[in-house]
């Protein structure tokens, strides 16, 4: 990565005494690339992402996604255990898990629709309604809070002109509070779609937002 527009580009690597490039830390040869092949059990092909381009009308499942779904099934002794990964896959594709998606997943896994709804609503990462292209989750739990997370959250709301939990008018951003993201040593920790942004300060927020807008498809 060159020409970094702001101090933190989403990895604990380049502030203060850090001297690693993003490539070195995130290891581009390790992330972002999801081949559909792969060994029996390991599963990188089936790890979900949060994509910026969401397709709420997509079929569950076909093509590459069907292959990934079938691969998920091979990794557990029964079909029910595939429920969480399958819901994640549906969300990766459609951007959220609608009641209709839940019903379809229930059908695929031979579970009752009510059961699938009960499980889906238990977990916070399943979006029950559509979210913006960038889902911004600001940790405001204790460690980040002690270091000014509330100001970071306010800055995100201000510069995207949104209310907490709402989606901006252009559909670009949804800002929510997150519980501890396990980046406590690098406060404030912000997760934007699949990426972590660490050591975020309020003054950097406008730059991060501009960067995301320019990236388009992150």
């Amino acid at each position, binding site marked *: 990565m060159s020409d970094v527009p702001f101090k933190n580009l989403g990895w604990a690597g380049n502030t203060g005494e850090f001297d690693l490039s993003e490539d070195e830390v995130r290891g581009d040869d390790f992330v972002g690339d999801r081949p559909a092949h792969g060994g029996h059990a390991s599963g990188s092909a089936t790890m979900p992402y949060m994509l910026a381009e969401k397709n709420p009308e997509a079929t569950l499942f076909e093509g590459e996604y069907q292959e990934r779904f079938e691969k998920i099934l091979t*990794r557990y002794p029964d079909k029910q255990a595939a429920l*969480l990964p399958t819901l994640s896959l549906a969300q990766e594709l459609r951007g959220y898990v609608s009641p209709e998606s839940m019903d379809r997943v229930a059908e695929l896994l031979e579970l009752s629709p009510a059961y699938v709804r009960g499980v889906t609503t238990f977990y916070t990462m399943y979006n029950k309604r559509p979210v913006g292209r960038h889902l911004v989750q600001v940790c405001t739990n204790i460690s980040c809070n002690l270091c000014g997370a509330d100001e970071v959250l306010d800055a995100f709301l201000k510069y995207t002109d949104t209310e907490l939990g709402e989606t901006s008018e252009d559909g670009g951003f949804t800002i929510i509070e997150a519980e501890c993201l396990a980046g406590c*040593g690098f406060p404030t920790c912000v997760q934007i779609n699949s990426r972590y942004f660490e050591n975020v300060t309020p003054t950097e927020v406008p730059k991060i937002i501009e960067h995301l807008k320019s990236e388009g498809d992150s």
Partner: protein
Amino acid sequence: MAYPYVSDKEVRILSTYFGDPKQRHLDTYVERGGYKALEKALGMGADDVVNIVKDSGLRGRGGAGFPTGLKWSFMPKDSSRPHYLLCNADESEPGTFKDRELIRWDPHQLIEGCLIGAHAIRAQHVYIYCRGEFFETTQVLARALEDAYAKGYAGENILGTGHTIDVTVHAGAGAYICGEETGLMNSLEGKRGEPRVKPPFPAAVGAFGMPSTINNVETLCAIPHIVTNGGEWYKQYGTEKSPGTKLFCVSGHVNKPGNYELPLGFPLQELIDDVCGGVRDGNALKAVIPGGSSVPIINAEEVSRCTLDYEGCVEVGTMLGCASVIVMDETADIVKQVRRMVDFYAHESCGQCTPCREGSAWTAKIMRRIENGEGTEEDLDMLMEVTQKMVGTTICVLSDSVAAPVQSSIEKFRDEYLALIRRGERVGAA
């Protein structure tokens, strides 16, 4: 390598290669001696591996500190039914950020630990339950695992020894309670992550109804080193009852926050003043939570007496937990921070048990009332009464975790609560 911050007080065993991206590559890992321990362990009987770990005195790093070797020895000796090893990588205790670092810097270390652990408990399948938010971490781990499969370190007939162990990376979907061992099992099975009533214990009836053992990431990462060097070697570090090294996650108001690997029994004061460069801006220390948000908060005087091992923390009325040291200086608003933690527990309560579901929500409401200057002194008594009824009355200890910060902060920082209450009374009277 300048991984965020390092200290010469550290004994880096698990974190040797933090900050070195080359370590993620299988070739580098093997060059540096990786997978030798696996080879050694597979050449030994399962019980011999368990005995080495027993000798080392290694205690579970997930928070409870239960001896790992003993836990493994609870598994049935026959393998007529499938056994499972579960690795708990659902790191979500506020203040804890070690497992994510262990996985993303050194994924093969964990994979090797999992494979050895599986051999020791006669399991043929390992599930690594990663927190759902860890997209990149999970990707790093899964890719490393693919490499391990390709080179014959995992899967069928490992290294030609005839042993078959599969490893699956499983991503969660955002629920703190899935870090509780039986909650994790339910979640893995595609259910709501609600903890189960024990007994039966996981070693008898665990994941998918089969004998299972669950270990934390850090515990399993220590295994290859122990198998290579032996139990006596491991015991040279730490204290008699808490041997070995531990990753301390220091966050909050210190100059150099980060992960530091230190021998257990290290003095807390020295960790803050020396290793972490002191409290930020030269401020005075007010309070520390030494083990993640679920343990009692301690004040500056207790900090000066506290050593960081399982027993030392108990002596000053708190717990080591997962060694997540949250430091607060004189500017910290204790009431606000405790309220934030209670909000967290109210949000994460799975809702099965009434004391926890209702207690956490009401505690949060009362805390917020006090924070807003609308509380009364009776509210403090009510908080104590409510939280006392939340201890030991539920299936899991999430409920107890609400009580710890609330009770300890009222006991030790009552003045701060009273100041908010008095200020509110003055405003009300005016």
